[in-house]
């Protein structure tokens, strides 16, 4: 359990004036005055007297963002780890009334509507009457609809839910736009009598794995539950967020058209997230929301991988990382003011891109600028990263180009390369002798 909302004060007793923590000492001195239920009420109140402490919670942030984006969310989690508690906290934060429907105990007709015969079916038709919870939701105009135990619902019920989740229709009623849908399911390993989700239903959800942290549970049982600060959208960044999301998704899919649609093939991936135009649209939407809320990459990673699946999601995130790297043309234009990434692998990728840009359009000025960049990289970071870009850059030299002075800054890289060469020869001798 990672979230907790304090329960309301104990209200079930017949004498509420005597209940509450203040009543506890009085109850012990005057046992005759208080009924047994009052004492138990006091004990319950003491037990419920817990505090909260702020703690970052990526899974709750991801859930909040997906719900704000009005996408149906599916929480996968073992029974009893606080999915309902998380939903309660979310409903409080978003100020939405919570409606819980246990999908597995309903019939298909509870979601598609019960036929009710009116005066003259031939002229009026037979309306499909919606259940009471749907009527109340529509009357309220807004709310958080929580469909629990989705994976243990039989296939016919899941088929009926498809319409509810996709078209937001229950019988003849249409759920108003203010209603957000969250579902929960037990993973296959713990749902011994469960059905798996059909691929069309699975494709409509953002799948979030809900896990508990043992430390959080121990602290919470000790009286301190975590309180997550939930992401808020920055109104000033909305156009920028949309532009970035469009650029990222279109850029990746333009380069990798095979990722646009890929039905789950293996038995292990059934019932989970998979890429399709619909789920990429959801990923685009979530990227924009995460950018506008300035959410961390971890949160975005959970959301995107939960929408298009692990493999395509990771490729998308790798593409975003590459978008974050400085543009090689900008670096070549101003090598003096260039800021190179600090992480070794990203720095090497940047330098490789610079050399590739020079190779694409070899000009004297660009070649010199690339050497200046390499010299700068040698001053500020590990020399072994420079060996491959420097070697490649050297091969691009034309006969009339003089070797720039800045190349002296690369002496460290050269000596590192020579030492590595000698070590490689020795290592090959040793490993071949050993065989």
């Amino acid at each position, binding site marked *: 359990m990672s979230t907790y909302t304090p329960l309301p004060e104990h209200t079930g007793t017949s004498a509420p004036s005597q209940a509450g923590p203040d009543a506890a000492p009085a109850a012990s001195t005057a046992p005759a005055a208080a009924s047994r239920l009052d004492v138990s009420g006091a004990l319950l109140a003491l037990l419920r007297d817990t505090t909260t402490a702020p703690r970052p919670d990526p899974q709750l942030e991801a859930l909040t963002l997906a719900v704000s984006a009005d996408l149906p969310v599916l929480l996968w989690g073992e029974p009893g780890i606080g999915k309902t508690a998380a939903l309660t906290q979310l409903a409080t934060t978003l100020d939405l009334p919570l409606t819980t429907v246990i999908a597995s105990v309903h019939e298909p*007709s509870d979601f598609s509507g*019960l*036929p*009710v*015969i009116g005066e003259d079916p031939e002229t009026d038709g*037979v309306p499909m009457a919606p259940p009471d919870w749907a009527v109340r939701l529509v009357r309220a105009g807004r709310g958080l609809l929580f469909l629990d135990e989705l994976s243990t619902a*039989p*296939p*016919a019920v899941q*088929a009926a839910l498809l319409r509810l989740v996709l078209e937001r229709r229950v019988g003849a009623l249409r759920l108003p736009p203010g209603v957000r849908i969250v579902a929960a399911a037990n993973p*296959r*390993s713990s749902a*011994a*009598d*469960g*059905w*798996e989700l059909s691929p069309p239903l699975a494709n409509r959800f953002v799948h979030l794995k809900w896990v508990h942290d*043992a430390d959080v549970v121990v602290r919470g049982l000790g009286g301190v539950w975590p309180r997550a600060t939930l992401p808020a959208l920055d109104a000033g960044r909305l156009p920028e967020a949309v532009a970035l999301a469009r650029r990222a998704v279109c850029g990746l899919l333009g380069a990798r058209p095979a990722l646009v649609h890929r039905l789950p093939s*293996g*038995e*292990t*991936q*059934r*019932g989970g997230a998979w890429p399709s135009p619909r789920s990429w649209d959801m990923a685009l939407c979530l990227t924009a929301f995460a950018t506008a809320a300035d959410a*961390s*990459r*971890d949160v*975005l*990673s959970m959301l995107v991988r939960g929408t298009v699946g*692990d*493999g395509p999601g*990771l490729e998308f*995130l*790798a593409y975003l*990382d590459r978008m974050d790297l400085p543009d090689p043309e900008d670096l070549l234009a101003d090598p003096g003011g260039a800021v190179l990434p*600090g*992480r*070794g*692998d990203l*720095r*090497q990728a940047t330098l490789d891109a610079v050399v590739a840009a020079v190779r694409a359009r070899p000009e004297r000025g660009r070649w010199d600028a690339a050497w200046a960049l390499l010299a700068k990289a040698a001053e500020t970071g*590990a*020399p*072994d990263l420079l*060996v491959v870009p420097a070697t490649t850059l050297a091969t691009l030299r034309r006969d009339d180009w003089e070797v720039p002075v800045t190349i002296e800054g690369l002496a*460290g890289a050269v*000596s*590192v*390369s020579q*030492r*590595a060469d*000698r*070590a*490689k020869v*020795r*290592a*090959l001798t*040793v*490993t071949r002798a050993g*065989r």
Partner: protein
Amino acid sequence: MPARDAPVGTLDTGKLYAARLQAARVRPYLATALFALHPVESRSVPTMAVDPYWRCYVSPGFVDRTPVEELAGVWVHEVSHLLRDHHGRSDRYAHRHELRGPAERLRMNIAADCEINDDVFGDGLVAPGGAVGPASLGLQDGELMEDYLRQFRLGPHTAHLAWLECGSGADGLPRPWDLGPDGAHGLSTQERDAVRFRVAQGIVGHPGNAPAGWRRWAEEAFHPPQPWRELLGAALRAAASAPGTGEDYVYGRPARRSAAVPGVVLPSLRRRPARVVVVIDTSGSVSDAELGSALLEVAAISRAVGGRRDLVGVLPCDAAAGQVRPLCGGAQGVELLGGGGTDLRTGFARALESRPRPDVVVVLTDGQTPWPSRRPPCRTVVGVFGRHHGRSSYDESDPEYVPAGPPAWARVVTIG
């Protein structure tokens, strides 16, 4: 041997980076991961150690006294701990088996080292002195850390390993020198996943360069294999309970909705339990223990979806099919005849001939068989005993024979 071009006591970064470059040259598919590691000079670590946030703590003295080619081996060894998520797996193992204390973590470090050291060295990469391999503990090569952990205990024979120290990145136990999640140059969860993903993609894209251990890692890094029992169960449950299997609308009993529409007779949806026939490949290459456990699983699952035991039939099949017999007394009562070559086409035909017709046919086989050319008129689940691939594909009468894989219309689960 070590070149002393740095004063004693300070970290010889030139040597350290030369070793990293050599490691990246002989193992190009690990270059991204090697360059993503951030070296941190530390006098507390005995040699080199990693933390879960991809920092590499380096002892200057160790760099000084170790030749470059051995340092390259250490680089690869340390980055392997992180790529293979040994800290996370150690934590999960400790959690599952309720292990605590430094001794257990040392055992995890040893097991993790065994998993790495049996196949990363050689071919241009020198094993560092004192590297522990499975053989030194009397264990087999090529297993996973979790398997090794079950097979050895600390004792006099491991006393010489007590100094082993690959840091919290190898066994999950925080060390005093760790900079922690908030320190400089740490990688976030997503960044770690991204690096591991890029390395895995590189290996899958150019599998020829990488040894089998790394290829297996790359294939499973983001798609961990699931236990076959759950997969077989889900496939069978989906086949036996899908719309259209043994259910139809009947007027025999009033529908639940009838109360809402007085005067109208509505059909109600009735379902009879699915009939399941299990065709068992008895061609001799599948062990009795495996068959028995798979058969029990099928019986248990079909009971769970509402079937009765007498609705599960068993059909042993090698080159010729036997008779469908009800599975009444558990798997022990089934006589599994056969032992020659396999032709599952006869098994399919016999299963579909049986009356009443089965709703689901489950085939348990090692896959070395011809398959029906057309989709049978019922749902099909194929359980393939995957371990036997390559071992039993040899056919004396026709050594060139290569059997086709299970057809696309079946749901295939790899067992074991």
